[in-house]
């Protein structure tokens, strides 16, 4: 068991690396340089260059050294720095340079890149090793660093991304957890009933209703729900209202979410229940003379728990992400809302952090689901 878990944990490493690679390709290679967008309406070229540097868009993609902003480069005016070099490095006196001297030194070193000579002599005879001052850095490296240290930096408005994400988790959960539990309870109860009366008219009706519920676009549910139940009938707040408890504002979105998701849920659990009810042990139980409720709750539900628990555990991390459309329409400041905002403003920093954190959660919960699976089903052996 322990060995299994350790092996699974190790297997997470390539997956996480893969996720990093995918997000890098998406948001850096294809998404690209958004400095002009950050600079605003009447920007000047200098500011844009400065922003590119600040956000690291001018770094090499995979391997290389941190470059300079083009405009930063000036012919050396400081008499301390000579553009000459010596051939053999001797002595290791280091000197303290200000940023400006450092820039000049590095630029000179870059110019002599091909000759492989990176040392410079200053006017007072000391030697400056510019090589050691080049920062080895690339966009991928900083992408990687951000992820493993969980330090995602700041978004384009300079707010801390981690803070932003944390703030969004609460409202998202307030919406999705009741929604999830509600639809879970209703779907399982309905599917038990359906499994019990399978083949009858009632079964047919419920299945058809489920399909009908599934066939209406999600957006239509929300638009209609908001207009009719919130505005016309005035039963619920129209929009998230900070002056009232969160619970009041999320009732309507929760209801809409449950109804819209019911079809899929019932059908999913119905398949599971039907599978169980057709098993031999159920026939045996009935043959023993057990009552239907007993069979359903003691045997069927218990056995159906295995796929149910797995499914529940696998769904948990997705709850954190909230519901994109519901949050947007009802103004609930959760992660789904944040995501739309990030998409609309092309804030790839936020999207990147979000994707990575979510992937990490899902990887962990998949592992938990597998362990749970073994826990509820003793037949499963960890190899």
């Amino acid at each position, binding site marked *: 068991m322990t060995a299994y878990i350790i092996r699974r944990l190790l297997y997470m490493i390539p997956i996480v690396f893969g996720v990093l690679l995918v997000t890098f390709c998406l948001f850096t290679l294809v998404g690209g340089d958004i400095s002009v967008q950050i600079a605003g309406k009447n*920007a000047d070229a200098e500011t844009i260059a400065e922003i590119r540097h600040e956000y690291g868009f001018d770094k090499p993609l995979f391997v290389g050294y941190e470059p300079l902003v083009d405009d930063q480069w000036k012919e050396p005016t400081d008499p301390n720095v000579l553009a000459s070099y010596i051939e053999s490095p001797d002595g290791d006196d280091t000197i303290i340079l200000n940023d400006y001297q450092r820039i000049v030194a590095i630029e000179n070193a870059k110019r002599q890149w091909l000759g492989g000579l990176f040392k410079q002599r200053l006017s007072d005879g000391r030697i400056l090793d510019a090589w050691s001052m080049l920062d080895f850095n690339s966009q991928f490296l900083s992408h990687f660093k951000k992820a493993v240290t969980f330090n995602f930096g700041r978004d384009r408005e300079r707010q801390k991304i981690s803070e932003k994400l944390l703030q969004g988790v609460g409202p998202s959960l307030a919406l999705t957890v009741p929604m999830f539990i509600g639809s879970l309870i209703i779907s399982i109860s309905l599917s038990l009933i359906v499994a019990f009366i399978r083949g009858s008219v009632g079964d047919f009706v419920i299945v058809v209703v489920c399909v009908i519920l599934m066939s209406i676009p999600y957006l239509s549910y929300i638009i209609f729900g908001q207009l009719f139940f919130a505005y016309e009938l005035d039963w619920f707040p129209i929009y998230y209202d900070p002056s009232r408890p969160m619970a009041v504002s999320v009732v309507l979105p929760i209801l809409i979410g449950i109804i819209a998701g019911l079809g899929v849920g019932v059908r999913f659990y119905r398949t599971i229940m039907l599978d169980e009810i057709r098993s031999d042990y159920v026939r045996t139980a009935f043959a023993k003379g057990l009552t239907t409720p007993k069979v359903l709750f003691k045997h069927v539900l218990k056995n159906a728990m295995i796929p149910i628990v797995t499914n529940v555990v696998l769904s948990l991390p997705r709850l954190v992400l909230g519901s994109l459309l519901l949050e947007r329409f009802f103004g609930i400041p959760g992660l789904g809302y944040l995501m739309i905002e990030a998409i609309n403003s092309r804030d790839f920093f936020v999207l990147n952090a979000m994707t990575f954190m979510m992937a990490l959660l899902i990887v962990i919960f998949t592992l938990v689901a597998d362990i749970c699976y073994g826990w509820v089903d003793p037949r499963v052996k960890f190899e």
Partner: protein
Amino acid sequence: MLKSENNTGRLFDTMKQGVKQIGWLAVCLCGIALSMSGCSKTDTGDNTDEMILRRRMPTKLQTLDAGNMRGVYSMEVGGQIYETLYTYHLLKRPYEITPLLAEALPHVSADNLTYTIRIKQGVRFQNDPCFEGGQGRELTADDFVYALKRVANIKYLNQNWSGLKDKIVGLDDFREYTKQFKKELDVDYSREVEGLKALDDYTLRIKLIQPWPQLVESVLTDILSSPVPHEAVEHYGFDIIRHPVGTGPYRLKTWRRGCYIELVRNENWRNELYPAEGQPGDEAAGLLDDAGSPVPFADRIIWRVILEDQPAWMLFMRGELDATGIPKDNFGEAISQQNMDLTDEMRARGIVLKSFDDPSVFWIGFNMADPVLGKNKPLRKALSRTIDRERFIDLFFNGRGHVAHGFVAPGLDSYDLEIARFGYSKYDLQEARELMVEAEAINDGPIGPLKLGMPGTDTFSKQYGQFVQRQFEKVGVMLEVDYMDWPTYMAELNKGQLQLFCSGVSAGAPDAIDFLGMFATKYFSPGGNKFYYSNPEFDELFDKAEVMLTSPERMELYRKLERMVMEDYPAIFTTHRVSYVLHHSWYKNYKPHVFSHRTSKYRKVDVQERNGYKQRLKELKMQEKMAK
């Protein structure tokens, strides 16, 4: 297998119990989830006796750092927290500059190059942990110097520098000097700038490179020049975006991004009074009822972030917002088409309508650097003739707009009432078709499909795009519309990659020089000139106009420049917007003001009336039902 039908009743009983147990568990879990949300304890004081201004924020607020603020909505909040040297008078029209943090209007030297400004004594910053002991210190002239230098600091990466470029003696050198540093805060702000000096604690002196008549209007009333204490910048670092420290009547209490913003009274606010004089008619309108009483009136201001128009409208109708614009699709509900006035239902609710000219202009711009459009004036003119602007205004703005015959907006000093006579914005398909023949001759063949960049992917933009497509089609020009989100649009526009683009501006000051600047060669994109319009004759006159003081000659020159541009058709100018604002009867002292965002302190709410609104609404609904 299926024999136990008669047990169904018991089945449901057992189930009920099971559900009950699971139900409790669910309730607990939901409770935990809700308490985690953390948003549950904020109180906007519904039905209290506190005076609260309730507003809507239709966009995500980006920053509350004065030096980097752009956009009307951030200024609407920032304007209550920060103050500038000057502002516009609340009631007087035409707009008049009045001192705010300054003692009096600036003392200007004879050569119009040196401005000496006395600053009010005893003004204190709001209390904030960044100060020693948490008590706000007194404002000095150095704070203004610091604020402007900070905008010049290149490492601060702010959006406002372009407004100060090549204006103040030594400031550009200061920007050059900041380039060598790695971080914003490494810069030594004590480095002297010749044109920007605090002579003593209460005297500020600004020296200009050349005369700049718009200095007061465009910089000293603009939020970018408002004093920011260096203590705050140093203390909060990047986080200053959400820790504004200013001298204004309000201070920030809470800001939950994408959710709401709350300002409360600043304890250190100096005693200021409601203006005692206004325009004729203001007294009758009740705008002078509070003359001489100390401001601010309201205890708190709350903005709720509501991106969509629909929910905002519904909230306004329910009395949860004090004022609102009218969404295009609700116009029929609010305003009757016959007399363009409020409908009876609105009146019954005590809603008041105020309409005013927004000093703005909107256009479909041509990229003059484009090989097809740039050299083909008949084509541009023809396309301009295809747009039926009146129908456009009817369709998209419910008639809330004026046809833009020129680009200088009504409400600006040099707006030419007579400009329609030149017929630059005529709708004339016949002429357009004739011009197209000419255009095709210049182009050596039929005009290929053109491409329009549209900022926005929402319904409005899509409909706008389809409208233009259809109009162009009438003269046989195919148009592809590229619907982009704002950031992408911005980037493409700044790089000059859009062939045609939809855009518009709203004036920040009564002087039209910024509008004219959009066509000067020296402001090529990423500066203000997104058209890449270049006309040497225009440039020469523009340089002259830029340094001219307000005078009738200047007005003539402005108008001449405007016509010069219009003759060349660098854009299809479509509309000047007219704003319609609805507010509830309990919202007092509201007089539309297009240039100042510092007006919240004068607003007042009749709390009793507001609290009675829900009741009134119920009665009205009952009446409606009875009538049916």
